[in-house]
């Protein structure tokens, strides 16, 4: 009988407050190292967790008591991260998809988003580090962002 391959699954729900994000990113980084992923892979993943969870808090948790759900599936050759927040509206889906998945402004990321004060740097970092990003808003206005990272052979 063949044994079905199952991922390690980590699921965390936390209040919509940025102070929780640092604990989540550090935890995931440590878990990845414990699962034989390299320190570099763990660091890059930590950055992604930080950016997508921070965005979920900033833009998806404006209501009092709102929370973020974070899930990470760890496979031998890749990981999947899923973040859900309650701040979506189906009217925003096109705008959100463009912001998350499409290449952004030209000349040196518009002089690095006007020297750092215009935002948008986080998404650019996620785009560069992730293999794929997908975004969705469901009928209950839950926004979800799924990011996949594949283990690389070049020392990552």
């Amino acid at each position, binding site marked *: 009988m063949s044994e079905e391959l199952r991922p390690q699954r980590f699921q965390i729900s936390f209040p919509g407050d940025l102070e929780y994000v640092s604990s989540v990113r550090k935890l995931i980084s440590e878990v990845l190292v414990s699962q034989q992923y390299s320190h570099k892979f763990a660091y890059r993943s930590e950055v992604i967790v930080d950016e997508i969870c921070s965005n979920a808090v900033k833009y998806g948790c404006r209501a009092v008591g709102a929370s973020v759900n974070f899930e990470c599936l760890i496979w031998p050759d890749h990981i999947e991260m899923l973040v859900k927040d309650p701040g979506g509206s189906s009217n925003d889906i096109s705008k959100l998809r463009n912001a998350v998945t499409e290449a952004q402004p030209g000349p040196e990321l518009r002089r690095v*988003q006007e020297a750092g*004060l215009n935002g948008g740097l986080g998404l650019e970092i996620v785009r560069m580090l992730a293999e794929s990003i997908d975004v969705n808003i469901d009928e209950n206005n839950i926004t979800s962002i799924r990011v996949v990272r594949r283990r690389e052979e070049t020392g990552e």
Partner: protein
Amino acid sequence: MQSQIELKCEELPGKAAAKLVRFIGDLDATNVESVVEEIFSLLNSGVVNIVADFEKLRYVNSTGLGILLHFSKSAKEKQGCFKIANVNENVYEIIEIIGATTLLEIFDDVDDAVKTL
């Protein structure tokens, strides 16, 4: 829980209006305000030439990077500079990804940065 960061300021003998600031810990959205306060306190008190030693800066996210760019811009507006030295490989990669290596003055070590003041 707020991420931990500590800034240690040291004099730079023989350099006018200058200080070395060692960043120790993680820089992210949870502690960026305290870092802004400390750096702007220096800039506003006339210390407009700052060398930031990142040897012990383990982590920076986009919020932290944004503020580093802001420090650089603000120092230049005051006819000074905000130079960075000893950046570790992981932090450098994040700076590079957003194309900020051309906007920030980055040096291999503190001595190289101080020589240019």
